[in-house]
């Protein structure tokens, strides 16, 4: 049973905290990965809850020390409190979860109905020769656990097909990251994000090219990129061109970056704007979608 005893947990954290020196030379206090894991087990809480309490007491979970001061303690707490749903765990999704797990997003909902096969190996970081035919959702959850045990992960081996059915899985998410590989499901996912009134970070790739944008509930969204859903093909140029690893990893990383900025309220987000790239001639531009 989870123990709802904030002050007891707080004093247990204080006892484990040790003096340390921050990278700029200022003294601070830290708590190690092992101590966070130990306390999480002791109090039957996910590790991120221990880490939030540590930060609130001014104690740095040392695994995140290099996030500061690019992020503030309040920013890190916002990331730890956040729940992000990543749909599609191929090339984009693998890159997204790698970044989000390391950054310390507290909860991840991972959705993909597919299994890894040999054609994934050229670009999907989660695919490995010894994981062929394994469910992408399971492999992704294992990867997150290996990177950061403090993250609460739920994995669903499931394809997103209809807004009604899939909404339930995502209803307490703060945002959705679209890492899908077809246009049809992207429109379904956008419908869900709009129904839930949460932002959708979306990227797509083909060959050496890709584009990325952030769609808020009030925005026109995917229709501005692909035209009306009924006229959009189910697959795009990737069917003819395939996808090269660098553009896939780059666009996934940029999706994670947009997610982190939305969750912390930092920086400028690509809402109503689109980043387009072609790595073959190093074109990288920001377009106004308005």
């Amino acid at each position, binding site marked *: 049973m989870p123990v709802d005893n904030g002050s007891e947990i707080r004093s247990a954290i204080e006892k484990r905290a040790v003096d340390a020196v921050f990278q700029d030379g200022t003294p601070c206090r830290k708590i190690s990965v092992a101590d966070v894991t130990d306390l999480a087990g002791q109090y039957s809480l996910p590790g991120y809850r221990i880490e939030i309490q540590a930060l609130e007491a001014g104690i740095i979970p040392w695994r995140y020390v290099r996030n500061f001061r690019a992020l503030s303690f309040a920013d890190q707490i916002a990331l730890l409190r956040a729940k992000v749903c990543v749909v599609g765990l191929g090339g984009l999704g693998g890159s997204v979860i790698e970044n989000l797990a390391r950054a310390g997003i507290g909860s991840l909902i991972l959705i993909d109905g597919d299994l890894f096969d040999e054609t994934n190996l050229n670009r999907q970081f989660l695919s490995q020769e010894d994981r062929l035919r394994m469910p992408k959702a399971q492999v992704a959850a294992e990867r997150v656990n290996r990177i950061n045990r403090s993250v609460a992960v739920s994995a669903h081996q499931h394809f997103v097909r209809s807004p009604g059915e899939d909404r339930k899985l995502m209803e307490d998410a703060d945002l959705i990251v679209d890492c899908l*590989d*077809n246009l049809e499901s992207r429109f379904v996912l956008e419908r869900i994000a709009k129904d839930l009134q949460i932002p959708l970070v979306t990227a797509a790739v083909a060959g050496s090219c890709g*584009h990325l944008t952030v769609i808020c509930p009030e925005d026109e969204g995917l229709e501005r990129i692909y035209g009306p859903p009924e*006229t959009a093909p189910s697959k*795009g*140029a990737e069917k003819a061109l395939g996808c090269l690893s660098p553009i896939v990893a780059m666009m996934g990383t940029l999706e994670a970056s947009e997610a982190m900025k939305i969750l912390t309220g930092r920086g400028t987000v690509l809402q109503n704007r689109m980043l387009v790239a072609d790595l073959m001639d190093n*074109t990288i531009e920001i377009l*106004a979608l308005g």
Partner: protein
Amino acid sequence: MANPEIQIKLFATLNKFAPENGDHYPIPDDATVADVVTALSIPKKEAKLIFINNTRADLDSLLKSGDRLGIFPPVGGG
């Protein structure tokens, strides 16, 4: 006055339609995006995402000398 010309960047599968003189592509006065798309034999339904000088445009948009025209086909891979 020099003849009007534009710069063209075609993405993904449209790259195969790119003219050799894409950095200095001559256009008639009052040319639209559709005129250029037709001249380059790009299937119109493939010209999904059009932008002129970093702003979204469409097939009917007018081009003027010095414009940078970019066109994306539908792209959905992940």
